[in-house]
């Protein structure tokens, strides 16, 4: 129980570090059209390894802090990251045989949905849409996020003290 609580606190701090990294470094890379969303990847990982509830709560808190630090409309990132966490956990039931493939599929799909939700909300708030920019983002960002996933997922898994067999509440080895 204490170990579980400790891992939740640890994950929260990892998310805060991800937030600072996003603002201090990955935000800068977006100028070159290299679009990493470290927070989203970390939240997906937390949702998968700690459960939907924690993923949604952390998504809401970190998204809100992100919006308060740099957002145009406060609450949008909080909303989208919570939805991301909820979706990620639902998508795990798609369950490919390969664990890596399942992770890639989830990150890819959540990234695409993330972009679409953001675009829709901003469109509803009377912002113009650049179809070319959105299309480019829908190609580049999933690839960048999948690269980040290869670092973030093992990090969150190790810090949650989970062994590979019990991951996601079903045994991959048996599935394969």
């Amino acid at each position, binding site marked *: 129980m204490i170990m579980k609580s400790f891992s939740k606190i640890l994950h929260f701090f990892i998310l805060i570090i991800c937030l600072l990294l996003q603002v*201090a470094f990955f935000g800068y890379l977006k100028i*070159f059209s290299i679009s990493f969303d470290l927070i989203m990847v970390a939240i997906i990982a937390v949702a998968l390894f700690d459960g939907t509830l924690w993923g949604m709560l952390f998504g809401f808190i970190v998204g809100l802090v992100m919006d308060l630090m740099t957002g*145009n409309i406060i609450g949008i990132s909080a*909303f989208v990251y919570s939805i991301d966490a909820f979706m990620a956990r639902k998508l795990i039931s798609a369950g490919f045989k390969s664990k890596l493939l399942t992770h890639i599929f989830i990150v890819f799909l959540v990234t695409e949905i993330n972009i679409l939700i953001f675009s829709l909300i*901003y469109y509803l708030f009377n*912002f113009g849409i650049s179809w070319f920019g959105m299309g480019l983002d829908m190609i580049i960002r999933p690839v960048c996020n999948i690269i980040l996933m290869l670092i973030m997922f093992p990090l969150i898994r190790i810090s949650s003290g989970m062994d590979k067999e019990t991951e996601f509440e079903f045994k991959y080895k048996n599935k394969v």
Partner: protein
Amino acid sequence: MVILNRRVRNFIVLAVIIFLCLVVITASFRQSEIINNIKSKTIDFFKPIQEKFFSLFSPVIGFFNSIRDYINLREKYLDLRAENSGLREEYVDSVNLRVENDSLRKLLDMKLREGYETITARVIGFNKGSWQSEIILNAGITEGACQGMGILSEEGLIGVITQCGSKSCNVRLINDPQSSIGVRILSSRKLGVLKGSQDGKIILNYIPVGETVFKGDIIITSEYGNLPGEILVGRVSKVSEDGNSPYKIIEVEPFADFKRLEYVLILKQ
């Protein structure tokens, strides 16, 4: 049963979160004072650690810039050589005009234009995306910064402060889709509004189709906006027309390079 309960619980939590987000979004859109205060406190709270993070990643950012500079070296050299020869000619004209201007001002007993008071600040964060283009600076109300003040780099105007904490502030860059700045075309003195766009282009609006605008025309701030007049902003890079619109579509290339912002000046007004 337990799984069902968990599912119901998750749906309830999601519904509560969505409700809270809608409340916050509405409050933010209505420019609520409480939200603005919380925002200022948040950027102040994270400022020290963010500054450390930014210092840590400065060499990496510098490395990215070096690669880009190296790739563009030859092109830049040719551009600078052409610009240099043009500037040499302009310099001679400018000296003559300055002498003439000074003597005419003395004759009319007019004051010479005064320089602006500025505060130096360091960039400690970026938030660039399709929907926004912002930076965070390490100076705030304590240093004399305040909402609405203009931000300059060595080359020209880069943005305007949108949120000011006691020790840090958020700056909306001129290519942000929500940015809107009153400007003039230097040569024709025509007034227009400079707006950012989602794809990062900067568009000069409200210049009628009948007006002559040349590629390369210099854009400066207008004295009618919130910012002081005659601050260099950019150069016209493309002029086109849309058959249905009474206004020209003018793209502007900013003088400032947003990719290498490190230290900037806050314009005290």
